[in-house]
């Protein structure tokens, strides 16, 4: 049974790897093209920063927006303090002299905070910026170019990691690099269904038409919800891989797990909310392929982790039986094989797909670095983080997925 599951996983993994590489070549010009900036296109923008207890980062976020290369009279900054109990509002108010508007509300959640800013906005574009994001100087100028295409309702930027000194942070860097290239590929086929809160720009009119951000506090991923809603209304969401925003990521394992569980529970919630889109031919590739694929990916990641762990447990059992019970010395453990025996022991039906998947994975990572212009970190710490990212991270994600599914099935309260 396990062998058949492994074969199915190997085939699906192989198929997806070929798809991504194929897409990369098919959309080479559009994906890799360095955008020419039309300096005359300068739409007016509202930057909304919803903040709840962000006293450590809010100043940096506001300052990064004030520093962007964009005419000052073409944008406004609205900080919505969502009932913070720390000095967030006080710090934000120090920027009033630079034209920053600060609105204080009771704590009603991020969606509500964003809507307060959205209702006030009279600008053509509405930008959601998390209070721990730092926009690169050129990013806004680059990203707004996407809105020259009238079909575009929303667009997100690539996310780079601001704090990446610890191993756990460096591991997430790889995750963000993969996210950048995959989002670009999804956007290329019109199937991007998330607009991360780190930096996403929307056409204000389209957001209002779509009914604004979801204020339901059960929805803990309003950025996923709004993107799904726009997609459900057949709006196009773009992704600008060359526009860069930095974000502060969790720096401990506990915080990483907590964040992933929030994301995954948010995904489950929204997948259920927009279940009518799955396998629905009205949504073409998104409905027939990408959304079901996402669900399949969760099943694959959990089942492959179970298979790998059952193998590891077998290994421990072997060591226990051989070392503890049979008292075999360690040097007798290794079965020294001749080259011929080694070759004859290879299971080609699994190892060939696995090799293709690995090569495709490495190529995508390389491409993500190349297109975003991020240099490849080859320090020992980064290499170790990459090994851990390949070996340990999928298990961590599988664990978070399993736990999220259990919490959702039990109907546990969703928390930010």
């Amino acid at each position: 049974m396990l062998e058949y599951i492994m074969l199915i996983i190997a085939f699906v993994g192989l198929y997806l790897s070929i798809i991504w590489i194929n897409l990369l070549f098919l959309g080479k010009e559009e994906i890799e093209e360095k955008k020419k900036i039309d300096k005359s296109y300068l739409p007016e923008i509202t930057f909304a920063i919803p903040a709840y207890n962000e006293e450590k980062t809010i100043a940096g976020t506001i300052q990064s927006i004030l520093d962007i290369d964009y005419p000052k009279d073409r944008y406004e900054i609205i900080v919505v303090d969502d009932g913070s109990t720390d000095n967030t509002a006080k710090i934000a108010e120090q920027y009033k002299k630079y034209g920053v508007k600060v609105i204080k509300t009771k704590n009603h959640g991020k969606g509500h905070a964003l809507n307060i800013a959205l209702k006030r906005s009279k600008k053509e574009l509405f930008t959601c910026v998390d209070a721990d994001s730092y926009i690169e100087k050129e990013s806004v100028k680059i990203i707004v170019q996407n809105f020259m295409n009238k079909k575009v309702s929303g667009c997100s930027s690539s996310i780079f990691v601001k704090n990446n000194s610890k191993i756990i942070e460096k591991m997430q860097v790889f995750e963000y690099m993969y996210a950048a290239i995959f989002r670009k590929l999804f956007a290329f086929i019109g199937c991007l269904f998330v607009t991360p809160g780190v930096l996403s720009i929307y056409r204000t009119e389209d957001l209002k038409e779509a009914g604004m951000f979801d204020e339901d506090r059960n929805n803990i991923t309003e950025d996923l919800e709004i993107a799904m809603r726009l997609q459900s209304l057949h709006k196009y969401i773009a992704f600008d891989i060359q526009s860069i925003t930095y974000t502060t990521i969790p720096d401990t394992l506990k915080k990483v797990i907590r964040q992933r569980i929030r994301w995954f529970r948010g995904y489950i919630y929204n997948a259920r909310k927009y279940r009518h889109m799955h396998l629905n031919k009205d949504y073409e590739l998104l409905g027939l392929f990408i959304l079901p694929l996402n669900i399949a990916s969760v099943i694959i990641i959990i089942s492959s982790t179970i298979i790998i762990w059952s193998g590891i447990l077998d290994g421990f059992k072997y060591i226990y039986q051989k070392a503890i019970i049979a008292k075999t010395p360690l040097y007798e453990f290794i079965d020294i094989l001749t080259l011929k025996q080694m070759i004859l022991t290879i299971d080609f039906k699994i190892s060939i797909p696995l090799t293709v998947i690995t090569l495709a994975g490495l190529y995508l990572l390389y491409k993500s670095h190349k297109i975003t212009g991020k240099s490849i970190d080859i320090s020992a710490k980064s290499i170790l983080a990459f090994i851990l990212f390949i070996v340990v991270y999928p298990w961590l994600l599988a664990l978070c997925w399993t736990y999220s599914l259990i919490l959702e099935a039990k109907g546990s309260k969703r928390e930010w």
Partner: protein
Amino acid sequence: MKERYVRHMLVTSFIAAIVIFSSGVMIGWMFDGLRTDEVLNIIKNNELNSESYNIEQTFLENVDNVDCTIMTPRIETISKELGEVGQELQRYGSISDFKKSDFDYLKRKYFLMEIKFYNLIYRYQETCKGEYTPILYFYKVDDDTSETQGYILDEFVRRYNDDTENENGETKHGKIVVLSIDGLYDKDPLIKTIMSTYEIDPEKLPALIIDYDTIRHGLVDREELENIFNIVLHK
């Protein structure tokens, strides 16, 4: 327009995935042939060596010149080859997809060779007593206790056989040969016959037959094996 391209790409990717996946399966099929050939070659060699040994022993008996110094190395070679067959069958049999029936045939052949060797040692012991002590080990496939017993036997035999001489270079004791047989293998009646002769209960596997007459059911640990062999040595 792009939609059409992408649909086309999905189909071509699917075809490419099938081609690559099939190539892995095809290479696997080719290698299955090589694996069975590899095991078969050792088996053929072992058969020839057994045959040759048999003829040699008969000849020496006929001329009344049985010499243990000639016979012992021959037995050692056959024993070593049998061990290799067992290892290769275990190594390759589990990953074989297309030659399951061939591996099943080889497995049956291997068991028969082991029993043939068991008989051979019996005859050999009449003239060269104490040189080789056989253990017939009946195991159950995918059974934790049988696996553990296998590891205990491996380690016990390795130590025992490495320690055949004392400090003065004199022979302390002979060597042990383990012949492992799937106790639930139902394709050859011979195995059932042996098991019923020694009154081995298939429900209580693993089981050991040490030196033709000491029978043990269930897990036998190293200390117990040492005790049994102390008795065997003083017989």
